[in-house]
């Protein structure tokens, strides 16, 4: 019976969709009517789980979080029965380049990095393409917000936080230029190829650090004269309005880069791409109040003799060391797998709720948007997803609703369009 309904439903859906084939779905419209999600298991992102919950939101904000039995005052709200399903805060993809590049190997489609070494004034937000076919694919798996960052050079530029359902980049922006991205100069240089690569201390390291020191010192002292966009763009680092995201991954370079930032008077420092070496320095990171965005989890161990499953353990170990830790996904087109890299940490020391936090509230805290999102709490933006089953496991992850500021998202995407098109050709039943 359910199947028949499903087929009919998808048939109707098809009619609607066929018109717009070949386009990313139109962004949804502003929430007009309040909605309450009833009966699901709610994973709040705070660590708390509410069975048989009610989550209500109006005008884009969460207005109620609790047991469905606790209140029946949902009159005037659209009631959606999600019994047996799971509700979560929308997922946040940090350190991403989604929207800055469409096809990896097609240079013309790439706007990810700028030439030159010191580009603090370069802004990723102005190149963010809301019509990327990749974006709806991420949305379909629960990723609703992203930090879009530039790469390349020593200082790549500034990142912004966007929502993944927008007409244009202005529309998408949640928080602009919230961070400056620093690729710390290579402490070591690597030469050769294959398994005979050699590593030695870099000859240009000191010189590069001196250039950075000058830039930061000049930026801090800068008072607006003469006109200088580079120095202007960095001012927020010294008053706490901007975060410095440092990418570097050898112990000595991590110590040097963080000490540098502190000496320069940078208020907020995040280590991006933290791996086995960063873990060796957990005391140092804690002492300096540095949060970490983990290096890609689905990777092989860093060194040939590292522990076989080390990358899977890192999230739990950083957490144990008391360090604010977020998990992300490397590579925009694969980022629909974000929930699964968080899930990967579960058999290696995190609870499911803790794993969820690494891609929701922790990510929000690191990006400085935890006042508006990252958890299901009253007053926060209604950035909510509903999954048929466990969000973090591949075989049960199935997003049936997604809301950004209360707006109901269209969850169609390029993959589904092609799936329907060819399933129809062969007369296959569509399971979606």
């Amino acid at each position, binding site marked *: 019976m359910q199947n028949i309904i499903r087929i009919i439903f998808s048939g109707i859906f098809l009619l609607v969709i066929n018109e717009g084939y070949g386009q990313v779905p139109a962004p949804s419209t502003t929430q007009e009517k309040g909605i309450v999600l009833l009966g699901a298991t709610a994973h709040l992102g705070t660590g708390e789980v509410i069975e048989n919950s009610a989550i209500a939101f109006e005008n884009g904000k969460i207005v109620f979080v609790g047991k469905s039995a606790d209140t029946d005052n949902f009159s005037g709200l659209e009631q959606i029965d999600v019994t047996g399903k799971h509700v979560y805060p929308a997922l946040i993809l940090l350190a991403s380049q989604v929207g800055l590049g469409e096809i990896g*190997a097609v240079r013309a489609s790439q706007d990810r990095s700028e030439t030159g070494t010191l580009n603090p004034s370069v802004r990723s937000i102005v190149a963010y393409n809301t019509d990327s076919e990749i974006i709806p694919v991420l949305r379909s798996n629960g990723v609703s917000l992203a930090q879009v960052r530039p790469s390349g050079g020593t200082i790549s530029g500034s990142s912004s936080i966007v929502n993944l359902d927008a007409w244009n980049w202005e529309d998408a922006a949640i928080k602009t230029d919230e961070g400056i991205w620093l690729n710390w100069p290579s402490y070591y240089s690597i030469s050769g190829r*294959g398994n005979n690569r050699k590593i030695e201390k870099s000859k240009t390291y000191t010189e590069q650090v001196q250039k950075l020191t000058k830039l930061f010192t000049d930026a801090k002292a800068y008072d607006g004269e003469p006109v200088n966009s580079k120095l202007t763009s960095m001012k927020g680092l010294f008053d706490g309005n901007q975060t410095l995201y440092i990418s570097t991954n050898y112990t000595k370079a991590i110590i040097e880069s963080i000490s540098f930032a502190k000496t320069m008077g940078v208020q907020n420092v995040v280590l991006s791409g933290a791996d086995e070496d960063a873990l060796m320095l957990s005391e140092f990171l804690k002492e300096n109040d540095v949060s970490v965005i983990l290096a890609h989890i689905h990777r092989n161990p860093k060194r040939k*003799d590292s522990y076989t499953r080390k990358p899977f353990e890192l999230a739990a170990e950083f957490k144990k060391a008391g360090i604010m830790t977020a998990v992300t996904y490397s590579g925009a087109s694969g980022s*629909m797998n974000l929930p699964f890299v968080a899930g990967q940490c579960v058999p290696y020391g995190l609870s499911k709720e803790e794993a969820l936090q690494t891609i929701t509230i922790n990510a929000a805290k690191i990006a400085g948007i935890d006042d508006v999102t990252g958890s299901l709490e009253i007053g926060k933006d209604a950035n909510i997803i509903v999954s048929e089953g466990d969000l973090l496991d*591949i075989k049960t992850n199935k997003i049936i609703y997604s809301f950004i500021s209360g707006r109901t998202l269209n969850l169609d995407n390029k*993959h589904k369009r092609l*799936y329907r098109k*060819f399933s129809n050709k062969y007369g296959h039943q569509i399971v979606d």
Partner: protein
Amino acid sequence: MKKLCCLMVLITLSVIVWAQKLSPVLGVADNRPEVYALTNASIVVNSETILKEATLVIQKGKIISVGKDAAIPSNAVVEDLNGKFIYPSFIDLYSQYGIDSKEVKSEGSYMSRPVWESKENGPFYWNDAIKPYNNAVNGFHVDNNSAKKIRNIGFGTVLTQKQDGIARGTSALVSLKNDDEEVVVIEGKAATGFSVLKGSSQMNYPNSLMGVVALLRQTMYDADWYKIQEDKSIYDESLEAIIGCIELPAIFEVRNKLELIRFSQIGKEFNQKYIFKGNGDEYQLADKVKETGNAIVLPLNFPKAPDVADPFESVMVPYEDLKHWELAPANPGILEKKDIEFAFTLDGLKDEKQFRKNLLKAIEYGLSKEEALKALTETPAKFLNVSDKLGTLENGKIASFLVTSGNYFDDDCIIYENWIQGEKYIVNDKNVNPLAGQYQLELSSGEKYKAEISGKTGSYSLKLLSGKKEIKGKIQVSENLVSIFYSEDQKWIRLSGWVTEDGFAGKGILPESKNITWTMNFEKKSNSDSKSKKKTNQEPKELGDVVYPFVAYGNLEQPEYKDVLIRNATVWTLENEGKIENADVLVRDGKIAEIGENLNTSDVFEIDATGLHLSPGIIDEHSHIGLDGVNEATHAVTSEVRMRDVLNPEDVAFYRQLSGGVTCAQLLHGSANPIGGQSVIVKFRWGATAEEMVLKNQVGFLKHALGENVKQSRMPSFIATRFPQSRMGVEQSIRDAYLRASEYKKKIDAGEKVRKDLQLDAIVDVLNEKSFMGIHSYVQSETNMIIKLAQEFGVKPHTLIHNTEGYKVADQMKESGAAGSLFADWWAFKFEVYDAIPYNAAMLSKHDILACIHSDNAELARRLNQEAAKAIKYGGLSEVEALKLVTLNPAKILHLDDRMGSIKVGKDADLVLWTDNPLSIYAKASKTFVDGIIYYDMERDKEKYEEIQKERSRIINKILAEKGGSSGKSTKEKSVTRLNEQFEYDDETSFDYNDQ
């Protein structure tokens, strides 16, 4: 009697033929008898015989008698050696002495403009790396400066060769005498040379090790073919040279033990028993090296101790480099114990003075002195079949020998003379007595010093004590002369003089130009003399164990097999029942023997699997791990290359993937060419050799590739010049190869004698269904094209690899019987995968097309179970069908489903025990079995990690202890270490075409 005398003279003459110069006499002839008798010597005739108080008589560069009672001819120059030792001079079989080697450069950069055709002038073989026409003797010239350096450390004879190319032509055996080349050359063509390096050839082919193997094999087959041509339609000087020298000993340069074993096998194909120029890592696979039966020329260049003082940086030193640092000096001793024949070479030593130091170190680490001597004398002579001329001190042999102060292997032994072909070269003046000791220095101006001379002949140093002040001075002494100088308060005192009964005396000049006389008389031997290292009590060195393979997570010994009963698991049989709850699986003799509930067995090892899941081992249909090179990225068609030739069982990826439940994989050529190379299927028997990992009785697969990679889409335009550059040309490349192969096959089938063509043989195997097409293909147009092309040649488009648009051509695939080997959800990383969708696997499965999910990536392979689960999420396959995508289905595609891929009685016991539903992100492989042997155990893995840390610490402490002695002089040295990170080749997302 007179007759007898004549006869004896005749015999002597016939045995010993004196060297004779052919050049006309310029000025007055100076032909001397050159008869020398060295008496009262300890003559080391060979490694087993020492004659005490014996005499060696030589004449015109040859030995004419040796022994206690050797008759001394009346015209001999007689010298009493007072018990000094005589050894045969050493022989080095891997040298470039006297050869101009300037033009031999290293391999061309991979980013240089490709060179497709030969640049050599002459009727030579098509590939410039094949240079068998080079004869070292032609360009050889005596170079006394270089000769002197190695004469001084004991060498008398070297085998010299232009070390250039894969086939290098002949080498010459020459002495280190400073004389006419006609005299110095002992054998003009003593051996031939081969290498894995292509040397100065600018041609792009071959640019991989497997290409080197293919080129060498094809060359040898061509030589065989050329030899039997009655009516030679072509003349090839290279093949002529190979045929002409086929009987000579062949010395083959390899870069590691794996290459040694590989090329030993290649040699057997052509009845060639190479003598390998080894690398000092042979101990890491000593038994397997022994099995080859090949001899080795060993370098003595032991690795420098890595910089390990700083804990943040010591983690960057690879485990195997630490282990190798410790064990390398033990290599010769280990090979001796395994009865492997070897000679030594100076090759690889930056400073030839290191030679003796390292040789003594090897002895300290277990090499016997007898074997050490043999490896420098008799063995190299034997390798070259010149034992009648060199290697021992016997009548009639070449008079190349050393005079030393005592046993060569004693620490304080001094080489006095190196006689080469009867010519004496003085290394250290044997008439200068050892001078070390304490003296009293007195100047006529009144100064007195206590003086101490230390060191040994040739390198003395002087210390003066004036009151409490210690002054360092310099002293040079020869047989008769002495000179000393030192400074006191920046004022230089210079003394010159002669040797006296009591010490020295002479004249000198003080700083203020005052002339003085001086004496320095011997008082007593130095106390410090007794300090000279006592290494006589040789305790065996305590060394770490060799692990197999020789990398982190290697095994101390091969994991043991025992029958096992896995009790009470959820068993995913993937047969009709799908999965069975609470079932037992019995493994006997490496096979699945029984499946059921509460099996009754008492005699086997049991594993309680309550709450666990048991699945078949994961089979990765598409992988590039464990290969020394993935692409022969040169010619458009390189079907001649074989992945099994470059299988490297030491890749830690095998172990890491066992931790993800992978037990078997097809290792393929990359996608650089329309037709790449031949795959190999391996089982993940971690710790076994390459040969043992290769699955027995496998069918072949030949890699084809279409699309962007083949078109060189992302190469710079100066490189992207090869045909094809479009999908139109790709079709032509493949069609043409198949047409040529069809013609070739016709001739073979008709019984015609054809030139063996390795490239076409590989395609003929496909035409004969001994091998199957694997086709890297993405977009629907090319997929459809290759289906039709294959059908046209009567073969199945067997496996469509990646096949991201398979869902668009499902009808065509189904009709042709093609299978799809897929990415689960990779897309948009390049243009041709922009329409890739994660529903593909489910869509093909629903269309009754055999589909599997592969890794194509060393990391992703560890999580193929998760990748399979994506077919549940995208397209709604059942769990059992999803799991089949990485087990039974790849087994079917690889023609292995009769023995792998599901849990069924009689199949191989390749099993994975999971902590959870294997399709869940929360599942961990707890144990992975291959042929019933546990190759991965989650608990053991942690222990292994701890053991590795302990072993690292132990060796690091040892290094620091050794370095500590040399008072931190290494701080100035640049610290360069090999990167301790596994290289991961990625055929798809790396845009660097080249193999590693």
